[in-house]
């Protein structure tokens, strides 16, 4: 076996391991939200005066649509990267980043809607505070996701090897889809407890 092949094999191994890292990291993040969910359930069951006891803002539906679309555009960007179409990839990445920021803004605005409904963060019915915790922690992850997308954007240039670019896009896409699914999980969880 030539030295070059060994190198390539070792690189493949490295890529595989790094991708695996990401999956494990996502398991860890999911555990955080699983803990919050179980905390919410236990807390809410502790009294009849507990519980969300409000209608979740309409805004959440819009933000769900936005993040779903952003997942789609990111998938297209990934496909473009695989096909070697750098310009298309960059354009779609920008669209995804903008959609991510729009999602962020919508979520923050929905907090405003919640407070108008009288659902405050500082609240003796902590079930309502949990809504802010869920969405807030998710937004913290969205910030991380946007940073990953931006770094993928700057990785998309001719001076960086295609396989590295594709690998980065792959990781960014997996992470972003995960954030998308995570939001849907949170939304459904809150809706079920509405």
């Amino acid at each position, binding site marked *: 076996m030539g030295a070059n092949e060994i*190198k390539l094999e070792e690189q493949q191994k490295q890529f595989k391991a790094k991708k695996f890292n990401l999956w494990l990291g996502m398991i860890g993040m999911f555990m955080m939200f699983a803990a919050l969910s179980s905390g919410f359930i236990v807390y809410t069951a502790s009294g009849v005066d507990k519980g969300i006891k409000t209608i979740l803002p309409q805004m959440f539906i819009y933000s769900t649509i936005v993040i779903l679309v952003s997942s789609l555009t990111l998938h297209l960007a990934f496909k473009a990267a695989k096909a070697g179409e750098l310009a298309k990839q960059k354009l779609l990445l920008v669209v995804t980043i903008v959609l991510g920021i729009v999602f962020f803004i919508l979520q923050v605005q929905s907090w405003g809607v919640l407070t108008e409904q009288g659902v405050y963060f500082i609240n003796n019915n902590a079930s309502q505070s949990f809504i802010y915790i869920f969405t807030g922690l998710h937004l913290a992850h969205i910030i991380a996701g946007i940073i990953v997308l931006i770094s993928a954007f700057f990785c998309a240039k001719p001076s960086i090897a295609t396989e590295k670019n594709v690998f980065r896009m792959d990781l960014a896409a997996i992470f972003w889809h995960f954030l998308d699914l995570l939001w849907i999980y949170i939304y459904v969880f809150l809706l079920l407890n509405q």
Partner: protein
Amino acid sequence: MSSTVISHDAAHHDAHGHHHETFLTKYIFSGDHKMIAKQFLITGIIMAVFAMTLSLLFRIQLAWPDKEFPILEVFLGKWAEGGRIKPDFFLSLVTIHGTMMVFFVLTAGLSGTFSNLLIPYQIGARDMASPLMNMLSYWFFFVACVIMVASFFVESGPASPGWTIYPPLSAVPTAIAGSGLGMTLWLISMTLFIASQVLGGVNYISTILNMRTKGMDLWKMPLTIWAFFLTAIVGLLSFPVLVSAVVLLIFDRSVGTSFYLSDLVVQGQILPNEGGSPILFQHLFWFLGHPEVYIVVMPALGLTSEVISTNSRKPIFGYHAMVYSLVGITVLSFIVWGHHMFVTGMNPFLGGVFMITTLIIAVPSAVKSFNYMATLWRGNIRFTPAMMFAIGMVSFFISGGLTGLFLGNAALDINLHDTYFVVAHFHLVMGSASIFGMLCGVYHWYPKMFGRMMNEKLGYFHFWLTFIGAYLVFFPMHFMGVDGVPRRYYAFTEFAFMEKWMSVNLLVTWAAIIAGVGQVAFLVNFFGSIFWGKKATQNPWNSNTLEWTTPVEHIHGNWPGEIPTVYRWPYDYSKPGHNEDFIPQTVPFSETMSSNMPHDFEGNEEAIRIQEQWNKENNRVVEG
């Protein structure tokens, strides 16, 4: 750093160590797993000394509650006015001692050190999957340590609600002095620490699953690797839960939410928080907290397995059983947390469930203990210092584990909870056992880490002082606990029934002081041997695992040429028919025809046929 390893330039294939390294990239911001392991170890040792000093301070208070030690005031100032430690500060000492020992020494110092050192070495990888994450893991840990130590320099003192930081003490900043800024620093420190552990753990799992060398299937991995692997899984699943608990706690503290707080009056003032549940915190905390004790003890069990087998010159007894018992502990560790909360008003039925799951853990633990003894049985034992500590670890694991059966029983726990019985139990089974596992690892792998040997005589001296000292400190506490002496009390002078225990406290404190001073032998040995130790040979313990096939001198990428291929499991010690009492994993079966057994070939008929033909030609009779 990884870019060097995966460089595409074929001409530089053997030049892993030849890229430019400055002092900063080699010793400070290193991505190399060996250097990171040493960083973890030395930071861990410094933390251990610090935390041990704290314990000596509160032991002094417990032994001589009415005596004045002016020297304490010199060092501690207002916290020991008139030479007596103040009650507030006593609580801080207990809290920070626990936090540092559990998290910084026995989690980061133990699995941080040995996972980093041994995972790439023993599975045959050039480095961790992500050296960058590995480096970040260390630096998050380091900053966490600095912040925790820094909390001693704030006016209101370090955190003092105990290492379990139960609200409301931890959630109401005005509750006691240690609930203020010190508690905030504790939370910041712990958040960084969790980040460090998750980064590290993810890396360990991924490296083990993806970067094993050719031939290294899961059932050929040393038990150390199995232990690190399962420990990392436990950490990955439990630490994020603590993040959630801490996030809610921070909002309760700083913003005014009511997740954990309800119906409180602090210093005559009614707090506005209503409807929260402090029990909710305990559930979330112990969902991490209990797995955490297995995070602490499993790497120690792994290290001990390896050291005991190597130094008994015998295969580990029941390799598969050892692995399955680790898996059993891993799974069970997540469904027993309720045994910390038997007396919080838990539904007795639920208590019963938690009691059963808790007691079931005795099964895998006993399997491990018996297997250790069976490995020692009729072995050709070499009592190296590492071996002494390994046997000591088994001893503590048994004597501490047995009292777990008492505490895990919901009915008995009503009497025993929050007494010195609990203190005795966990200091033996997780404190002493894990520390001994860690020390056994340090003595055994020191030649691999620093290329020199540690002094044996100092090692034995260190072992006996620590071993006897630890038993003298913790064993009497069982009797105090059965008598109902509560833990975390500042002094026992106010209660008539506890007065008889004053003399025992004196014994315990003297034993602690002597054992504490004994650690100087270790420190001298450890740091002195880096410079003056005897030069190590490549394989000083005649061990089978892969790390001993690397050169003594550390090079980037571990092996100068190709990574060796693995042919056999790591425990072929004293195999009948072989001319040496060890066969390294890299030796193919074709070179050991005189010692091969049919089961070595795992049903490979061709290989069995060749072996049988060889046996016939050489008149070899295979028994069994």
